[in-house]
């Protein structure tokens, strides 16, 4: 079976600094993988490289998405192909209404997939259905993209967009940062609702608590640009107890 995602010996630089130093990762459809690591380990870099951010330079290695060379595709082509990145800090875009932007996104993907574009009524129906899953107030969508959204609203809005665009690989970049307990639960419920045998998830996080709600199949520890250890969901608890330092080469966790 062709893996959903295969990252092979990935080396990435940004502004001349080496950030990822040989990452290897394979994800099958239906799996939820968590990547945990301290600040500066390269977690967000990995997320941005998968999404197609221009500032990051791949100096070595390969990324295959459903067997195709992902690095050959531009950011918008990757989104059409089925990749979705829930940003850690969703940017505010004054002057661009959320509904307007979402309709453009939904229809761009539908067009790519050979599906009929949604008309106004169907689009509104879809919005209401998906907004309910993350308890997002639809009135927020009349505002400009992320403008004036609270931290929690921004994160929920990312999950809402994910639900709207129906991706096959969801990358969540520290979605839990800045969330209180209730918001965390809402976001987790929204993500869990999207879990199915066809979809894969990469959950990037510092802290273990999100993983109580979105229980992963695999946990990877990213240290200094490479995966130091892989395990099942219990690895997250081990990390919580021992700390990241224990997993450094020559640490007691190895």
């Amino acid at each position, binding site marked *: 079976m062709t893996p959903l995602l295969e990252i092979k010996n990935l080396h990435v630089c940004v502004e001349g600094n080496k950030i990822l130093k040989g990452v290897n990762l394979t994800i099958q459809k239906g799996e939820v993988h968590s990547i945990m690591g301290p600040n500066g380990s390269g977690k967000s870099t990995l997320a941005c490289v998968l999404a197609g*951010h221009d500032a990051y330079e791949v100096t070595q290695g390969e990324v295959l998405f459903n067997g195709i060379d992902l690095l050959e595709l531009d*950011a*918008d082509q990757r989104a*059409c192909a089925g990749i979705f990145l829930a940003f850690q800090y969703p940017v505010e875009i004054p*002057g661009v209404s959320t509904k307007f*932007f979402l309709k453009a996104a939904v229809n761009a993907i539908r067009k790519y997939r050979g599906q009929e574009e949604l008309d106004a009524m169907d689009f509104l129906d879809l919005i209401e259905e998906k907004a309910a899953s993350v308890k997002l107030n639809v009135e927020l969508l009349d505002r400009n993209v992320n403008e004036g959204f609270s931290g929690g609203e921004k994160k929920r809005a990312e999950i809402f967009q994910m639900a709207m665009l129906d991706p096959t690989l969801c990358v969540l970049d520290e979605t839990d940062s800045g969330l209180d307990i209730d918001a965390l639960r809402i976001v987790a419920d929204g993500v869990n609702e999207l879990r199915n045998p066809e979809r894969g998830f990469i959950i990037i996080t510092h802290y273990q608590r999100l993983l109580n709600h979105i229980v992963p199949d695999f946990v990877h520890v990213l240290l200094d640009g490479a995966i130091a250890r892989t395990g099942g969901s219990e690895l997250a608890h081990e990390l919580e107890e021992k700390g990241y330092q224990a997993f450094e080469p020559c640490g007691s966790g190895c």
Partner: protein
Amino acid sequence: MLMTTMTFDNTVFETLHRTEAWKYTNVSALSKIDFADGIGIDADEIQSFDLASNNPFVVFVNGVFNGEASRLVDGIEISSTNNNSLASRSDSMIPRGDSDSLTISGSHEKTIHVLQLITGSSPVACFGNVCIHAGEGEKVSIAETHVALGDQDHLFMPCTQVIAEKNSSVTLVRAIRGSKQAYHLGSLHVEQHESSIVQTHTITLGGKRTRNEVYAYLDGINCESNFDGMYMLGRDQFVDNHLRVEHNEPGGNSREFYKGVLDENAKSVFTGRIYVKQDAQQTDAKQTNQNILLSDDAEATARPQLEIYADDVKCTHGATTGEIDDEALLYLRSRAIPADSARTMLIFAFLNESLVELADDEFRAVLVDELLGNLPGGDFIQKLYV
């Protein structure tokens, strides 16, 4: 139909760019063109510019009033005499001349649409004279569309004078559309009295070389004045927005806010002079020019000029020139929006801030359409409005 004959000496353009006020704007080519009087055109061509069939509509073709296509109401008068006394108060060097002139007075509930069409099979030069007189407490809104048709080097020199009496309110929008070969050298003169409110928008989408002059005299206390503008220019296009706002009495609140997008080798100049007389205390004046450059060949020049003689005033000025926000671009692209559509969305968002303020829905819709028609990936966005 009233007829006028025009005499027009175009030698003045030869050396205009050697003066300080025109140093960035070279229109010497105009001195070498043999201009003709224009001719009339078919009613059908006018039809497409009739944006709001329930509103008063005043049509001029080559400076000549076209009664057949117009819809006048009380308070709208056409004559062949031109009174330029307010315009003479300025040091504008744009030639003034005769045309059928339009005078608007009294309060009007609906926006009065004025269409100035310039057309001909060889270059036409003509004037447009409009006087708006809002009496005490009166309220009026005017939308001027200036369109040159065809690809000749037409020259249009509109002069609009506004007198806003005590407690009156005047809104004036001028949109320059159509041919990118024509020259638009226009002026707007505003005289305000106590507690009057004047709002102008000057929108430049067409024209090869456009100069929009605004002269405003806040001659009464507590006037409120917003002089806004927007421009979206492409290859070989140029706009010079030249403003002079005089605070002659205390308590005035004025704003000059112009924003634009320049593509290819387009160029813009913004000169914003704010003059505050010695007795004009408690003046609050703001001036901003924001530009987005889409190419390395585009150029924006901003010249703020503050001449302040009073000591209890607030005057701020700012100019920015930048590119499209990369982070926002990535965000949109990560949601499957193709690069050029994403870029257009952001450009449109930037410019729409100006358009959104226009109360007249039909007028705004037409401008949005034209704007999107000029941007790559714009049709993708046009569909989203449906």
